[in-house]
């Protein structure tokens, strides 16, 4: 194989690998974020888990979601942190947390717009209490829930 061919192949490999890398990075949630999250799930039922580094109860919900996902690989779980991706330290902590749980492939976090604006973009009826989750069915209808997520809730929602 010629050197040129190898370089071409490597470039191709990188070109192919980069979007996969990008998909693992936490995506920025701006005022259009909800529509983008819904579109990314292509009409399949999913749960959107809103959390923050400072929310102790959120850790229990994230642990439960991670555990259930390990058991049922087809569970569609999207996470959204209200910590700012603009804060480098917070971004590193979020990444670490999500990677350790294996929940880093559909992860979002608040971006540059004001937290007030972004909270409103999530849900104008939400008051900022966490953990907060949204359960989207195949029709795109969502049910909001405040409180800790249990395995039973996940089983019931994703039951065939």
């Amino acid at each position, binding site marked *: *194989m*010629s*050197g040129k061919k*190898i*370089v071409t192949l*490597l*470039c191709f490999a*990188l070109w192919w690998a980069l979007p996969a890398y990008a998909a693992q990075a936490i995506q920025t949630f701006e005022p259009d974020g909800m529509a983008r999250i819904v579109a990314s799930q292509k009409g399949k039922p999913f749960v959107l888990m809103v959390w923050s*580094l*400072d*929310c*102790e*109860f*959120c850790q229990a919900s994230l642990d439960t979601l991670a555990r259930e996902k390990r058991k049922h690989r087809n569970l569609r779980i999207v996470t959204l942190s209200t910590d*700012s*991706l*603009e*804060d*480098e*330290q917070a*971004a590193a902590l979020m990444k670490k947390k999500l990677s350790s749980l294996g929940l880093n492939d559909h992860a979002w976090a608040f971006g*540059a717009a*004001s*937290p*007030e*604006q972004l*909270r*409103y973009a999530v849900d*104008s*009826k939400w*008051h*900022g*209490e*966490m*953990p*907060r989750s949204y359960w989207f069915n195949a029709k795109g209808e969502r049910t909001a829930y*405040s*409180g*800790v997520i249990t395995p039973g809730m996940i089983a019931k929602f994703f039951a065939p």
Partner: protein
Amino acid sequence: MRVFDRGRIVFAALLLLCGIVNLAWGQQSMHAHMHAAELGTSVAVDSQGSLWIVGKEAAGVDQYVTVQTSTDMGKTWSEPRRIQQTPEPVSADGENRPKIAFGNKGEIYITYTKPLAKPYTGEIRFVRSLDGGKTFAPPITVHANRDVITHRFESLIVDREGRIYVAWIDKRDAQAALAHKRKYAGAALYYAVSVDAGASFRGDYKIAEHSCECCRIALALDAQGRPVAFWRHVFEPNVRDHALAELTPDGKPSAIRRATFDDWRIDACPHQGPGLAFSADGKRHQVWFDMKENEGGVFYAAADAAGKLEKPIRLGDAQAQHADVAVRGSDIVLAWKQFDGKASAILSRFSHDGGRTWQERELMRTSGASDQPRLLASASGIVLVWRTGDEGVRTIFADRR
């Protein structure tokens, strides 16, 4: 073999290129981080009528508490001055913000939460100035317990005798329960007292077990001058309603009393603490956030001197948050923050007749990020102080049209 080496070099070059791109991204976000300030700010008025605010300054990775003063009720402010010689982490994110109060001889007292590296842990720090703010003593830690656990969400008040009370949320009891594999609802509330103008603190006195973990504590002096704490509690089995208790200098607080009855059953962090003020007639004025019958809201209610609570009034719409209350004579002002889809506004209600009749108006708005509203009863009236990301610190008299 030679070709393979060449390929490896090209691959390394491509990786390097990726690295440079990544580094550039990293620097961009670092730059952004320097602009994303935590806006948590507190305000107090000294005996000369000057306003003092404390907030946070981040200079790169270094963090400081800063103080600013205004002699013209907030029209102009002095440049921010750091109160520590050495930087240390400072919480200033709304529910958790530095506090300031004054002693009887003009002493300046400042408290703040210093978060530690482990999540949810912290120490309550205290700094004083005995020369009117020319110099500040090095910070001391208020609590005797030095476990690496939650000591956070501190609150500060000085009574008429000049005694300093600092109350905070503390997880030592929760940790002890965990060690014995017992369940423990919420955290606990502790306090410490200084009778020597902040040279030392006595404590740690327990106010209550099973407080909420993540909401600010309101402290106010009642008509007799006793400090009263008002906080979100966890009542059996998981009802996050509010409780209050009187604090005493000898570490024997009163039994706790339930002060809201919304029956919000939830295992969650509401991140919304209450507000409290007393009027000279002994009435207690309280504002708080709760979910009631599945609808969240900010509420105000007064209780008479005997403690009998009136029917709560809902303030604002579903977006109302983070209310404060101040009382001056028969004037009462309530203020809360409300986002309308485009901007955050501070809305208020004020009464000149002790709460018999009310008027409502919008005081300020901003399209960017903002702190919670703070109300302050000064000699010249009740003032709203609000720090916004775009406009800085703004003040307005909230007790007049």
